[in-house]
C-alpha cells in the first residue's frame, strides 16, 4: 500500500528542481510553458545562477580548432564533442563563469554561452582613442569581476606615435552589465564603461616586439609575453587594477631548442590540478607543472587525428613515389642538403618550408609539398606536382603571391584547399615570417646610413694646391681688416673696444688722423666727402641708415625743432652728424658725456630684448673644453654639457633665475668605454607619466639611446 499521494501527483518540488538543473537551457525555455509557477521559477535570477553552476560544473574544456569549437571533459581529452562552427581565425579569448569569449584578428569579440550554444557578438567600440598615432596594437582579455558581478573585457592598447618611439600601454576596461536574461535569449542590455588605467607590470625585460596576450588564470588577469628568442613569461596581477600586485608567475626558456612557442593559451575553464595546469603551446597541449617548473606534453586528440590523416595520405602516395623509402635512404647522413650543427639538424634545400631536417618538412621525401620562395622581393608559392616527378624541371608549379599579406593568405588557401592542414599551416607561417623580413629590409634600406667613400690622393693634393693659390689671390687679411673696421664704425660690437690693446691704439691713431681731416673739411660741401668713400657701397648704406634713424629722431624730438621745408639740408647735416657721432663713440668709449641723441640711439639698438644674466650652477666646469646645449625640459631650463673625455652632464634650473635651484639631472660617464658621444644634438626630451619615466635621447655611436632616470641607465633604442 504505497502512499497514493506520491503515486499520482508525483515528485516533491526540490527533486524537480534538481532535475531541472540538469537540463539544457533550450529545454528549460520550453518548460516555461508547464505552468505559471514554473514559468516564474525558471525566469528567476537565483534559479539561473544555480543552473549555471550546476550545468557548467559538470563540464568542460573548450578548444578551438579548424573553425569549430569543441568541448572536452575537464582537464582531460576524453569525450570531445563538436559544438559550433566559427568564423575564420577565431580564437578563444578567455573564459570565466560559464561564458566563453572569442575574438578574431579584426578585434571583434563575441561571447559564447555554452548553456544554450549561442554565439553573441559584442558591440565593442572600434574608434581610436588617439587620433595621431601611427600604429596600434591591441591585446584583449576576458574576465569576471566577482565583486560587482560583471563580466569584463579588458583591452590593452599600445600606441605608437609618429614622433619619437614612445609606445606605451593604456588599458581600457569594458564592463558588461550582464543581464540574467542572457542565459535564455541573447539580449544585450549592457553598457560600456571605458576607464583608462595603467596596469603595466614593472618588467625590466620589456622589449618592444614581444608578442603579448592577455589571459585569465584562476580568475586573475595574466599578461603573457613571448620574446623572439623563445622565452615565455607569464605575469599575473593578483589584485585587479593594483599595479604593485603584478608578479612573475612562470618563465619558460626554450631558447636553446629549435622549436619555440608560436602561441600560448591556457585552455578555457581549465583549472589547477594541484600544481599543474594545462596550457596550449604551439598546438600541443602541455601540462605545466608550477612546482617543478617543467613542461609535459600531452598528445592531444587533434595530433592523433592529424597523424592518422597523414598516414592515410602517405599510403595513397606510396604508389606514386616511395616517400618512406626516400626518407629512409637519405636520413642517415646521405642527404647533401643536411647540415648537422650543435643546435639541431637543418636543411639547405631552398624548397624546405621550415629549414629543419625532419620527415614532415623534407622537400624530397614528401610527394605532397608546398613552400614559398623569394625571388627578388616577390614571393612565389611553390607546389610539388608529383605526377611530373619524371621531369624534374617541371616538378614544381609556382604561383605569384600578391604583396598584400592578407590576399596572399587567401591565395594560399585557394591553392592548398584540399592539402593537409600541416602543410597549409607551415606555408602560412613561412609567409608571415618572410613578410616580416621584407618589411624590415625595406625599413633598413630607407634609413640613411653612413657610407664609406674613397678619395683619390692625387685629386686631394691638387685641390689643396689650388686652395692655397686662391687664398693668396683673395688677399684675405686685408679685406677682413677692412670689413672689421666698417663694423667697428657702425657700432656692431657693443661696448668694449679696447681689446686687444695694441690693435686698438693703432686704429685710434689712424682714425684720429682721418677725423682731423674731416674736421678740416667740415665746412665743405657734402659731395666731396661722399666721393672719398665712393667705392664702398656699405659705407653709403650705413650712412643712409644712420641718417634716416637720426632723421627720425629729429622728427620725433621737438626740442631740436627741425623744419619740414628744408628737408634736404637737414639730411645733409644729419649725415655729417652721424659720422661725427660714430667717431665719437670710438673716441669717448667709457665716458658719459654722450649727447642725448646718442643715448637715444643706443636705446634703439638694445630695444630688441632685455638681457639679463642667469646664474650658473656651482661645480660647473666651465674651464673644461665642453660643448654646450640649451634645452627646455618640462618648462625648465636645462644646460647640457659634453666634455671631450666622454662625460655628459645635464643641469636643470628648477626655478628660473634662482642660482640655488640648479641641480645635476643626469650624469653619464662613458670615459672608460671606447665609443664616446659622437653626436648629441639636439636631444629631444620627453617626459613620460611622472618623473621616473623620464626619457632622454642621446646620440652616440650612430645610435640613439634612451636614458632612464630612475634606473640611471642607458638603453639602446631601435628607431
Amino acid at each position: 500500500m504505497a502512499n497514493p499521494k506520491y503515486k499520482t501527483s508525483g515528485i516533491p518540488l526540490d527533486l524537480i528542481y534538481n532535475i531541472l538543473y540538469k537540463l539544457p537551457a533550450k529545454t528549460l525555455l520550453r518548460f516555461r510553458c508547464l505552468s505559471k509557477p514554473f514559468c516564474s521559477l525558471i525566469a528567476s535570477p537565483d534559479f539561473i545562477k544555480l543552473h549555471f553552476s550546476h550545468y557548467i560544473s559538470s563540464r568542460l574544456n573548450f578548444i578551438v580548432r579548424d573553425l569549430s569549437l569543441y568541448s572536452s571533459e575537464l582537464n582531460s581529452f576524453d569525450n570531445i564533442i563538436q559544438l559550433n562552427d566559427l568564423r575564420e581565425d577565431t580564437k578563444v579569448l578567455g573564459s570565466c563563469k560559464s561564458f566563453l569569449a572569442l575574438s578574431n584578428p579584426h578585434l571583434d569579440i563575441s561571447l559564447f554561452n555554452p548553456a544554450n550554444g549561442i554565439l553573441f557578438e559584442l558591440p565593442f567600440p572600434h574608434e581610436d582613442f588617439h587620433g595621431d598615432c601611427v600604429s596600434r596594437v591591441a591585446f584583449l582579455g576576458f574576465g569576471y569581476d566577482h565583486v560587482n558581478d560583471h563580466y569584463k573585457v579588458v583591452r590593452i592598447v599600445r600606441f605608437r606615435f609618429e614622433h619619437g618611439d614612445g609606445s606605451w600601454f593604456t588599458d581600457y576596461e569594458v564592463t558588461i552589465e550582464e543581464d540574467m536574461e542572457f542565459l535564455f535569449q541573447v539580449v544585450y542590455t549592457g553598457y560600456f564603461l571605458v576607464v583608462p588605467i595603467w596596469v603595466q607590470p614593472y618588467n625590466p625585460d620589456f622589449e618592444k616586439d614581444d608578442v603579448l596576450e592577455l589571459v585569465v588564470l584562476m580568475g586573475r588577469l595574466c599578461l603573457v609575453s613571448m620574446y623572439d628568442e623563445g622565452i615565455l613569461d607569464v605575469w599575473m596581477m593578483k589584485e585587479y587594477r593594483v599595479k604593485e600586485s603584478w608578479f612573475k608567475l612562470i618563465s619558460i626558456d626554450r631558447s636553446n631548442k629549435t622549436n619555440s612557442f608560436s602561441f600560448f593559451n591556457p585552455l578555457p575553464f581549465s583549472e589547477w590540478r594541484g600544481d599543474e595546469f594545462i596550457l596550449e603551446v604551439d598546438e600541443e597541449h602541455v601540462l605545466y607543472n608550477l612546482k617543478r617548473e617543467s613542461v609535459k606534453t600531452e598528445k592531444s586528440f587533434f595530433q592523433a587525428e592529424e597523424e592518422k590523416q597523414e598516414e592515410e595520405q602517405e599510403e595513397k602516395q606510396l604508389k606514386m613515389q616511395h616517400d618512406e623509402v626516400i626518407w629512409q635512404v637519405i636520413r642517415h647522413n646521405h642527404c647533401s642538403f643536411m647540415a648537422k650543427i650543435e643546435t639541431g639538424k637543418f636543411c639547405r634545400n631552398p624548397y624546405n618550408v621550415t629549414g629543419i631536417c625532419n620527415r614532415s618538412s623534407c622537400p624530397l621525401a614528401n610527394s605532397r609539398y608546398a613552400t614559398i620562395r623569394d625571388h627578388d622581393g616577390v614571393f612565389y608559392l611553390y607546389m610539388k606536382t608529383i605526377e611530373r616527378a619524371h621531369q624534374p624541371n617541371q616538378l614544381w608549379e609556382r604561383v605569384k603571391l600578391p604583396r598584400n599579406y592578407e590576399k596572399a593568405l587567401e591565395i594560399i588557401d585557394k591553392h592548398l584547399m584540399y592539402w593537409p592542414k600541416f602543410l597549409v599551416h607551415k606555408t602560412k607561417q613561412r609567409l608571415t615570417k618572410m613578410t616580416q623580413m621584407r618589411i624590415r629590409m625595406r625599413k633598413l634600406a630607407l634609413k640613411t646610413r653612413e657610407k664609406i667613400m674613397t678619395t683619390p690622393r692625387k685629386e686631394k693634393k691638387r685641390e689643396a694646391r689650388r686652395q692655397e693659390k686662391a687664398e693668396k689671390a683673395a688677399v684675405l687679411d686685408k679685406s677682413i681688416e677692412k670689413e672689421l673696421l666698417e663694423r667697428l664704425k657702425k657700432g656692431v660690437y657693443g661696448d668694449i673696444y679696447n681689446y686687444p690693446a695694441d690693435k686698438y691704439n693703432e686704429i685710434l691713431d689712424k682714425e684720429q688722423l682721418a677725423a682731423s681731416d674731416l674736421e678740416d673739411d667740415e665746412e665743405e660741401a657734402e659731395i666731396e666727402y661722399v666721393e672719398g668713400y665712393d667705392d664702398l657701397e656699405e659705407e653709403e648704406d650705413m650712412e643712409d641708415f644712420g641718417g634716416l634713424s637720426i632723421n627720425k629722431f629729429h622728427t620725433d624730438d621737438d626740442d631740436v625743432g627741425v623744419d619740414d621745408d628744408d628737408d634736404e639740408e637737414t639730411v645733409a647735416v644729419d649725415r655729417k652728424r652721424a659720422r661725427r657721432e660714430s667717431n665719437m663713440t670710438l673716441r669717448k668709449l667709457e665716458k658719459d658725456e654722450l649727447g642725448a641723441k646718442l643715448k637715444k640711439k643706443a636705446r634703439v639698438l638694445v630695444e630688441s630684448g632685455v638681457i639679463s644674466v642667469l646664474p650658473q650652477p656651482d661645480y660647473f666646469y666651465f674651464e673644461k673644453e665642453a660643448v654646450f646645449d640649451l634645452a627646455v625640459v618640462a618648462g625648465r631650463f636645462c644646460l647640457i654639457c659634453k666634455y671631450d673625455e666622454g662625460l655628459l652632464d645635464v643641469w636643470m634650473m628648477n626655478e628660473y633665475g634662482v642660482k640655488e635651484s640648479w641641480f645635476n639631472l643626469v650624469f653619464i660617464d662613458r670615459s672608460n668605454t671606447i665609443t664616446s658621444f659622437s653626436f648629441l644634438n639636439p636631444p629631444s626630451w620627453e617626459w613620460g607619466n611622472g618623473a621616473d619615466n623620464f626619457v632622454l635621447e642621446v646620440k652616440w655611436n650612430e645610435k640613439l639611446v634612451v636614458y632612464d632616470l630612475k634606473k640611471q641607465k642607458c638603453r639602446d633604442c631601435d628607431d
Partner: protein
Amino acid sequence: MSKLGQAKRIIFLKTADGQLFEVDEPVAMEFEIVKSFFDENEDAADDTVVPLPNVSAEPLAGIIEFCKAHVEFRANGAAGKDEVKKFNAEYIKEKSNEQLKELILAANYLNIKEMLDFLTETIANRLKNKSVEYVRAFFGIENDFTPQEEEAVRKEYEWAFEGVDED
C-alpha cells in the same frame, strides 16, 4: 553493537506494505535514513526491524539491487568506470517512467545521494527532448495557463520548441 568475529550483520527493513527485507549492513548503511536510525538508537538490538513507512516493496528491491552493485564496485577499488556505466545503463533500461518515479521517491526518502544524482540525471536525459505535455503528465503538473497565455509564452522562444521528440 557489531561484534568482532561475527561474519555478517544483517539488517531487517520493513516496507509500507508489510514486507520484510534482509539487507547486509554495508548496503543498508548506504541509506542515510537507516544509518541515522542506528546512530540515534545505539543500543538497538541486532534483530531490530527498521520501519520504512514511505517505501513499498517494489522500489526497495530495485534500490537494494543498485546499492549492492555499487558497494561491490567500490569494494573492487572503483572497479573501472566503464563497468559502472554499463551496469547503470542496463539497470535503467527496462524501467518505465512510473518505476523511475517510484525509485526516485524512495531514494529521496531513504536519502541515498549517489542514487539520487544518478536518477535525476537519468530523468533529465529522458525529459530533455520531450514536449511540454509529456513533462506535465510526468510530473503531474496542472496547467494553469489560459490557451492565449500559453500561446504568448510559446511565441517568445519559438526556437526552443523545435526538434522535440515524439512522445
